[in-house]
């Protein structure tokens, strides 16, 4: 049973080299060929990117469909995609393309944006570093999470799902080695985290762990 190593991460966005899309057909065509990192960024990394407040939708395509294409139907269909359940980016791409194609078949005029409202495809590089902090026992977990940066929360709770064991946050994985922590693990794995900001999620994680108690 090793200590939990608290990592932190910081993300830097860069251009993807793809031309900006001005309508749904161009969006579809770019999504069909973009790198997985681009798809990942627009679906997974949105909690780390500045936004004014809690948006209705947590992926950039749904937000663009709503704000710039003015297509509420498309926004709703894209918005409900739970990208964190997709461990294979190609499966996610397939579903998104299916939604685009379905919508393109339904509309008489391809939805387009106004000048200045183009969709810019970006991706990010994440730098991960060891904070030097260690958590020795589950009892320390709520307090430690309470003082983590947003970068640490993102890395251990969101980004972790991409790493082995796929689909599970780092806290739950660590707790496997400690007998009697099934309640905590269950609580962590059932958090509906999509609509939390990272700051809110930190508070929620502390709340459910304190509520569950440590053995």
């Amino acid at each position: 049973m090793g200590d939990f190593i608290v990592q932190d991460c910081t993300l830097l966005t860069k251009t993807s080299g793809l031309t900006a899309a001005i309508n749904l057909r161009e969006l579809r065509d770019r999504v069909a060929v973009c790198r997985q990192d681009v798809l990942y960024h627009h679906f997974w990394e949105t909690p780390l990117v500045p936004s004014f407040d809690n948006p209705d939708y947590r992926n950039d395509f749904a937000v663009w469909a709503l704000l710039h294409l003015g297509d509420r139907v498309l926004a709703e269909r894209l918005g409900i995609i739970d990208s964190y359940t997709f461990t294979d980016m190609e499966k996610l791409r397939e579903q998104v393309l299916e939604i685009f194609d379905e919508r393109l078949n339904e509309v008489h005029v391809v939805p387009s944006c106004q000048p200045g409202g183009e969709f810019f495809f970006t991706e990010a590089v994440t730098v991960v570093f060891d904070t030097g902090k260690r958590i020795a026992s589950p009892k320390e977990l709520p307090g430690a999470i309470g003082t983590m940066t947003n970068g640490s929360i993102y890395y251990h709770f969101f980004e972790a799902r991409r790493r082995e064991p796929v689909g599970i946050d780092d806290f739950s994985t660590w707790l496997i080695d400690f007998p009697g922590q099934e309640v905590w693990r269950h609580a962590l794995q059932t958090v509906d985290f999509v609509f939390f900001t990272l700051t809110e999620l930190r508070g929620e994680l502390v709340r459910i762990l304190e509520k569950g108690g440590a053995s």
Partner: protein
Amino acid sequence: MTKFLSSYEGLVSATVLGELRQLGNRLAGKRVVHVNSTREGGGVAEILDWMIPLMRDVGLDTRWEVIAGNSDFYTVTKKFHNGLQGFPVSVSRREWQTYREVNEENAVRLRPILEEADFVVIHDPQPAALLGLCPDRKGKWIWRGHIDVSRPMHSVWRGLRPFVSGYDASIFSMCQFAQPLPHPQFLIPPSIDPLSPKNIDLDPEELAAVRHRYNLDPDKPLLVQVSRFDRFKDPLGVLAAYRLVRKVQPVQLVLAGGGATDDPEGQEVLDEVLEAAAGDPDIHVLLLPSDAHRTINALQRLADIVVQKSTREGFGLTVTEGLWKGKPVIGGDTGGIRLQVVNYHTGFLVNSAEGAAHRIRFLLHHEALRNKMGGRAREYVREHFLLTRQLREYLTLFHILNSRQEASTIYV
């Protein structure tokens, strides 16, 4: 004044400051040189003014070099500035030659420093030619374009592109500003220093003194636009909006602009503004010295509404400054202003003098909403547009370039 990260405790969380130190520790001793064309005036000089000491504080051996140029050089680079933002200009062969010659003169002085540095950050087009004049460079070179080059005059961009293509990476404030280049283009919006004279809290006596000095009426709503006297900032459009508002309610306007040593066109625009404002005692056109930061700070704090009605804009730090002071901002629907001004949340985006006038009237009639928007505006800046975020992104970039990895996740 030397700045330290610890000074920002209370303005940002301790974890944010700790994160910066950890990123810096892993780059300790690396030599960083920033190069630009003016030590005073304009957003770039203001950013470097805080960035240099804070990079030093987190462990990097950082210095700031300013290239020297004559009036011909600044006339050419002002043309670049205008041309890159889409304004029609003509740059002659002789002027391109002047650009190269001044960079060559500066390279003689700077070459030993630049070639030894681990990271060189060249700000804007003025010193961009230095890269090709430092053939024995050891470190990574980054070109930082602060202005919107999304729709440049083709001839100007075609002339400048060879000077920036050879860099290891470039930085733009927004993806909308970038041009295709054969290297990674990172996106780092600028930020403000909450402890700088331009943004630090001021006591009521100082505000009252500034109000008195400029003969501002405490009983009349005040609109303030702070920016260089530059056509893209549209001071004449602000005057037109003010006149539309004044038809229906009393209001006063301050247009305050600092001069910058690399902007020879400012006087011409200022003269046009003075002519347009002549005879109206409620219009205050202030040409302030480049060190009048506390005065600008006070004017923004005295404002009921901050205006930044630019028609083209790099990022628009004066918008961030206004938001940080808890003021809703009426901003031109362009460039980085779009990142900061969110309709009904932190202010309004407008596309015309009429639109600006309409939103000014709306906000002047809804004081409670105005105050609520101002409160949100300040918190938005605290989270996204303070210098700590920008410093973190620069350190992240240095780590990325230092790692020599192509992966999307880098462990340091």
